[in-house]
């Protein structure tokens, strides 16, 4: 009897602590809502406002006057969308080859892939910038899309996934039926690895959407940037004057991502964790 009571009390305490953690995780989002619904003078009051105010539309208007919000959001969508499409195509093709076929040089090429995993971005940043400048890509979204169109992580991850998910018997059967490589890829491999593609797609999209350092350097025209760079510009110029407006920008920039995450959360969380303990 006492032990049951004890466990229940323990359970309540456990949930109380976990709930505190949950509130801490969520709090900055709530704080952004509060800040974006107040004017700067309201923000300066003490004690601080802890409930949403009524000036959201005003801040929104200020935001749209200060930056080309939808233009930069469009650029972000273009970059993240194109990269996601290309990564899914190129990575899954390469992963299919590495998972299911043998050919001379396979082991060396795969080892090279793992090595590439570890090359830090800033080592390549200067020459990349110079190459892009020579190609005339600096300032355009091409400079973000092309180098990101295939990556070592995705190939490695999809290979692990495909090795188990695609049965050799299926490939054998399709080959006897006369299906050649691309048909096998399209009709045998892709249908069974759709969940894996969903994970890689969401993961890639979020990574590209949030990318900041390289776009900051490569997008030299301040009027034609991605959302993250636009936000940073906004913070740099208005960050010490119009807090409510800047915070409105930050909040709006989070929304598309939160939507994508809400749709794919279960898969993302499960697959990432699985990858780590392999």
């Amino acid at each position, binding site marked *: 009897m006492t032990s049951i009571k004890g466990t229940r009390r323990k359970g309540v305490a456990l949930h109380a602590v976990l709930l505190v953690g949950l509130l801490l995780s969520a709090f900055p989002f709530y704080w952004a809502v509060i800040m974006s619904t107040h004017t700067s003078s309201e923000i300066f009051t003490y004690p601080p406002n802890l409930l949403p105010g009524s000036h959201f539309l005003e801040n929104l208007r200020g935001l749209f006057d200060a930056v080309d919000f939808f233009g930069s959001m469009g650029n972000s969508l273009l970059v993240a969308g194109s990269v996601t499409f290309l990564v899914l195509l190129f990575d899954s093709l*390469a992963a299919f080859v590495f998972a299911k076929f043998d050919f001379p040089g396979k082991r060396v090429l795969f080892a090279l892939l793992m090595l590439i995993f570890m090359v830090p971005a800033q080592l390549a*940043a200067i020459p990349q910038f*110079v190459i892009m400048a020579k190609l005339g890509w600096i300032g355009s979204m091409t400079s973000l899309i092309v180098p990101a169109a295939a990556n070592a992580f995705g190939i490695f991850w999809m290979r692990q996934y495909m090795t188990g998910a695609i049965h050799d018997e299926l490939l054998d059967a399709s080959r006897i039926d006369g299906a*050649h490589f691309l048909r096998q890829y399209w009709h045998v491999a892709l249908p069974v690895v759709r969940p894996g593609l969903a994970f890689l797609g969401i993961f890639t999209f979020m990574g590209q*959407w949030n990318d900041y350092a390289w776009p900051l350097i490569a997008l030299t025209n301040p009027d034609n940037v991605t959302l993250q760079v636009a936000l940073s510009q906004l913070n*740099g110029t208005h960050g010490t004057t119009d807090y409510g407006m800047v915070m409105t920008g930050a909040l709006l920039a989070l929304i598309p991502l939160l939507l994508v995450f809400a749709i794919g959360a279960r898969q993302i969380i499960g697959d990432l964790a699985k990858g780590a303990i392999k």
Partner: protein
Amino acid sequence: MATTLRKPPVADPATAGGSRPRTGARRYWHLYAAISPFYLLFLCFGLIPVGFSLYVSLHRWDGLGSMEWAGLSQYQYLLGDSDFWTAVGNTIVIWALATFPMIFLAMVTAVMLNSAVRLKNLYRFAYFLPNVTSVVAIAIIFGSVFSTNFGLVNALLQAVGLDQVAWLNTPWGIKIAVATLMTWQWTGYNAIIFLAGLQTIPGELYEAARMDGAGPVQTFFRITLPMMRPVLLFVLVVSTVTGLQSFSEPQVLLQTTSNDSTFAGGPGHAGQTMVLYFFQQTFDNNDFGYGAAVAWGVFLVVVLFSIINWRLVQRRGED
């Protein structure tokens, strides 16, 4: 057609489609073609650039004019460059301030999540949320939380009668603010990974420990922690590699209090990390030659530091 499957196929692969036997490149060309996009991109935007950056680091170059041979002088200068070493120190301090609380909190969270059966999915979702949000937006929000004049942290300090702190203007305030942001963003992510690790520990082990009369603390240190070592190592290495290359967090958080460069990392460069210093030298000062040397310096520091961390955790495992 001309494919060789892992399992020996029924018919000879070279003749399976009724086609003539083929050899070498002709037989495998479609496989090479399928993997080529990545390797081509890597060649153009990875391998050649990395090699070229070594070449650039041996020159004086502003990125536009002609390159001038400088030998190892850029590296010589780097060794004596106190600004670089300040940045190395800042990076390591911020990394430590962020990583140790983060790993501790993540482990505690994971153990609790592992025993709380109800609402587990809700918790996992909420704890993971900070990690998927953009650093820029989050850094702006944290900037307001740590603001000197209206920030929430200072309001709390005032409420309990303590002095206010100019968080984004003082050396330690800056480091704590940046580290707090990182801890907030990565604790839940690592907790989920730890949780996955915990779930692979066989229940019989705990059963046996309970039969032997082990308490929860003993069980944690004798069973959970040793079994979690590989996952812990993974988390530590990833945190080291990403944490030592932090850029966006200090850049956005401190851009409004930096006065000489947007990559300065706040007043007195107190929040300037190694990668921020690299950006300042390269893209603010247009010193591509020295910037390339700094990039290699950063790379070496990260590699060395990762090896040290790895060894420390491994050795403790052998004791």
